[in-house]
């Protein structure tokens, strides 16, 4: 079997427990069939802080992620507990370079509420990583409601999606 053409790096940005990324990687591996690398240490998200908004700039966060270029065939996705924004938007769950190499996913607004199973955070995080990863592969939002590339405007909508791409989206991401 030949080597997979793509590799995924899951990077901790800010104080994300390492276990969250390990478990997320376990959920993604069987689906992506890409090697997933979890670099040691964490990236400091502080330079992306906007003091006036008390939020973190998603665009700046991507700059931080690619400050050290990921290298050929690598897609780098940051996972952060920090609240992301863009100047025109109140908040974002994730942000990606369309057809690029980097993306970032925030767990700040997708944390389960009281009474919801704690494992839900891992499920939501993994689905958001799939979603942003799809954008780095050039995919736009998908109309299939169960596809990971379907847009989610609130956390419960993430729960409605499967941990999978629909066949056309999968052919772009996994078909390589």
């Amino acid at each position, binding site marked *: 079997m030949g080597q997979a053409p793509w590799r995924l790096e899951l990077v901790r940005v800010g104080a994300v427990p390492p276990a969250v990324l390990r478990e997320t990687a376990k959920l993604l591996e069987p689906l992506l069939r890409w090697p997933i690398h979890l670099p040691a240490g964490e990236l400091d998200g502080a330079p992306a802080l906007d003091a006036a908004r008390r939020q973190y700039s998603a*665009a700046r966060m991507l700059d931080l992620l690619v400050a050290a270029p990921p290298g050929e065939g690598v897609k780098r996705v940051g996972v952060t507990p920090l609240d992301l924004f863009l100047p*025109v*938007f109140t908040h974002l769950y994730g942000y990606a370079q369309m057809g690029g190499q980097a993306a970032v996913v925030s767990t700040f607004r997708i944390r389960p509420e009281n009474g919801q199973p704690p494992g839900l955070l891992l499920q939501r995080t993994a689905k958001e990583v799939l979603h942003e990863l799809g954008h780095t592969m050039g995919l736009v939002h998908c109309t299939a409601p169960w596809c990971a590339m379907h847009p989610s*405007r609130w956390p419960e909508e993430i729960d409605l999606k499967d941990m999978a791409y629909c066949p056309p989206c999968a052919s772009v991401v996994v078909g390589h």
Partner: protein
Amino acid sequence: MSTRISAPRLLIVDDELHVRESLSRWFIEDGYEVDAVPDAKEALAALGRRNYDVVITDIKMPGMDGLELQRRIREVNPKAAIVLITAYASVSTAVQALKDGAYDYVTKPFDPEALSRVVAKACERMRLEEENTRLKERLEASTPELVVGKSPAMQKVMGLVEAVAGTDTTVLIRGESGTGKELVTRLIHSRSKRCFGPFVAVNCGALPEGVLESELFGHEKGSFTGAAGRHKGKLELADGGTLFLDEIGEISPKVQVELLRALEDRKITRVGGTQEVPVDFRVICATNKDLEEAVRAGTFREDLYYRINIFTITIPPLRDRPEDILPIAQHFLQRFAQSMGRKVTGFAPEAQELLRRHPWPGNIRELANAVERALVVCREGEVHREHLPISSLSGGGPVEHESATSLPLEEIERRHILRVLDAQGFNISRSARILGIDRVTLYNKIKRYNIERRA
């Protein structure tokens, strides 16, 4: 063809680069086709090049602000939904914009969900409005046989319509005024693969040369006195649909040259402009003129004649298919009775006889007018002879067609027009209405028959 199969098109107008970039990215991810420009001037240029479903514009911009831009957009792309971006401080301005017809406004920074919802709803409304227009057009054209008739002559016409509708072939429709040439054109459009595209009709005989040129090809701002803004021509508006050029025989040699070029190259240049705009439409022309004679006389270009005379449908006048008169009259009777709230049951035998014997120089249009006016005076029961305006309209002796059997038809028409004009003190509008023809046709006939006002 540019019918609504492609992704909705958005135009983002904001002087701040990060806003343009963020919004473009957001909506591209949502599957929209997005263009972004920094100011109103470039926005108007973009709107001149193509149509957009939704324009998202900032209110506060240097130069022309969002409100002024909104007014200008209404001129060049009236169907586009406009969503305004505002800061909290200018909400009152945004409210004013809503009163002026903007679709909605959003305040910075946006909740991504709210913004997507607003734009999706605006696109949905655009789609529904477009669909509504197309369906109305299709509905209007869905029962043409009732209006055009079921005689063998018209069955033959319908056969030709069916044969040519599914193709993209240029069609020339010939027939006297009032025979239903536009109706047949609409029928071809409604049964063609362009049926969900626009149907754009231009009466070439109704406009002077300069106006017709601007009407067909559009104009750029300042290209002539009164050209206050950019104006899209009918050829551009027909993109993706059908262009109906009525009275094609009336256009001037200069416009003939430009039209021929546009039909051959499928590109137009607006009056006063330099940029070529690609256009994609099917052409259907109509005339009641002897085009062959016009070509021989040198008033109609031979190359344009061959370009439009590919497939000809000739609609016979109503007098040549008398069996169609009563069914068509009955159709109009039902339609007008319903709209006017009359309890009219039908035509009395003597009224039917009168309808059958009248020569109907204004064809179906004249018949429709006669029935409508009959229903104004007849409130219930049957329509009788005295309800019909035919005898009074012909000045007491209906066009002399009973006694003047040796006269050529044209002479009868000339005399009848003269009588009506005399009776109406040469008031063109009133006379045209009575004759059941439009004013331009009446002017043409006055010119053709050399009719002069009697002292």
